């Protein structure tokens, strides 16, 4: 009797560990596509100007140099990323580097970050927008093929 309950406890603990691990994976593994915009932002009457050039570096890797009205994108695993920006306000001016820890809402697949607004410290609803991809019109083959293959293909 005792060993039976003991093995049940061990099994339940094992299952619990797996469930917790799964939940952990759900939290840390969420993938996002983040778009960075370098454009002027209007919010509550005030306009935040866009600098001449922003160099976007995410997690240590340089993504792109954004001039005004340009956009770049990066994919990231997890809700947090380290954003380094090298900002050049005027053409030929000096560059200032700042490091931020950007947090993205867990539920959104794609987000657009307005960099000038973000750097100005505006609230999230100002600089963050959900990215909704245009519905793709590619015509995928309608019906799945009848699986009559005998193994001609790669393994």
């Amino acid at each position, binding site marked *: 009797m005792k060993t039976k309950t003991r093995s049940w406890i061990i099994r339940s603990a094992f299952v619990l560990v797996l469930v917790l691990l799964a939940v952990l994976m759900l939290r840390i593994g969420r993938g996002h596509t983040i778009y960075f915009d370098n454009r002027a932002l209007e919010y509550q009457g005030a306009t935040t100007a866009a600098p001449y050039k922003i160099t976007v570096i995410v997690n240590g890797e340089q993504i792109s140099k954004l001039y005004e009205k340009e956009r770049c994108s990066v994919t990231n695993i997890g809700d947090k990323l380290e954003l380094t920006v090298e900002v050049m306000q005027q053409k030929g001016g000096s560059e200032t580097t700042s490091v931020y820890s950007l947090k993205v809402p867990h539920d959104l697949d794609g987000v657009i970050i307005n960099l000038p607004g973000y750097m100005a410290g505006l609230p999230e609803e100002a600089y963050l927008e959900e990215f909704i991809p245009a519905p793709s019109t590619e015509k995928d083959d309608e*019906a799945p093929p*009848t699986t*009559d*293959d*005998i193994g*001609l293909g790669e393994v």
Partner: protein
Amino acid sequence: MGNTTTLGNKTKLKELLDSFGLPRLIIAGFLLLLLIAAPIVGLDFATQITNIITRFSWNAVMVLAMVPMVHAGCGLNFGLPLGIVSGLLGATLSIELGFTGFTSFLVAILIATPFALLLGGGYGWLLNKIKGGEMMIATYVGFSSVSLMCMMWLLLPYKHPTMVWGFSAKGLRTVISLEGFYDKALANFLTIDLKKFGVNLVIPTGTLLFFALLAFLMWAFLHTKTGTAMTAVGSNPAFARAAGINVDKMRFISVIMSTWLGAVGILVYEQGFGFVQLYTAPFWMAMPAVAAILIGGASVNKASIGNVIIGTILYQGIVTMTPTVMNSAFQMDMSEVIRIVVSNGMILYALTRKTERGR
């Protein structure tokens, strides 16, 4: 007195039910449902019947090919592709040698026969060496031979323009049209065409007569001395051996018969379908035949001509009616899934039943 008879009737019904098998009842019921649904969803009933009869005529001979080996205790002939390959060789060689029309059909059978005898002989010899594991090995012998022939179809020196690839003139095409050859050779013989009476019913009498001939020959054979010996080998090998019957020889003969029927079967199928399908097509052709005979009531070691007829009608009925009815009714085609579940489920059911004599 009265009570006992009613009780007796009840168990008899239950017995009938058990022996008929629940899956078969379900399948027969399903087919009935489809047939009733057909006119309701706007399909022409007569056309459906025509389709079922036509497909029956194409497939029945291949299902008949299952009978000899089941009788001899060699299990379900998953190695039917060997017979099919013989038939394909007969078909292609018949065309290559320049025969056309109905003659090409006869010549195809003629040429296929020695191949069937040869391949069936080798196959039968092999099966005798591995009594007990026939079905699995049969499957893989079938597959190996089809893939070997895939290479052969590319390499053999065929030259006939209707068969080889246009560009390089080397190697056979995947699908060869039989127009001008034996397309509908049997089906057009004595066809009963009710179209002129306004009913969309066309019965390919020629093919049905051909099948009836072969079925009759099979039935007759099973009642000869050799035939009964073969059945004895399948149902009780110990008794057969004790009675002095050469078990190996009986099995050998059954395999050759099965292979030859498979060859003729594919030729009959081709004349109905109108095309010769090479390369990977024969790969999967054993399963429908096996499923059909199982649906008809056969088991791993018991099969009758009645099983063949009922089974082919039920199986082909479901395979033809499901997509058409479902498409008309729901705009959704689940026929593929149903076909897979029905045929493989049937085979699984047969494999998991306790056999009459334990193996």
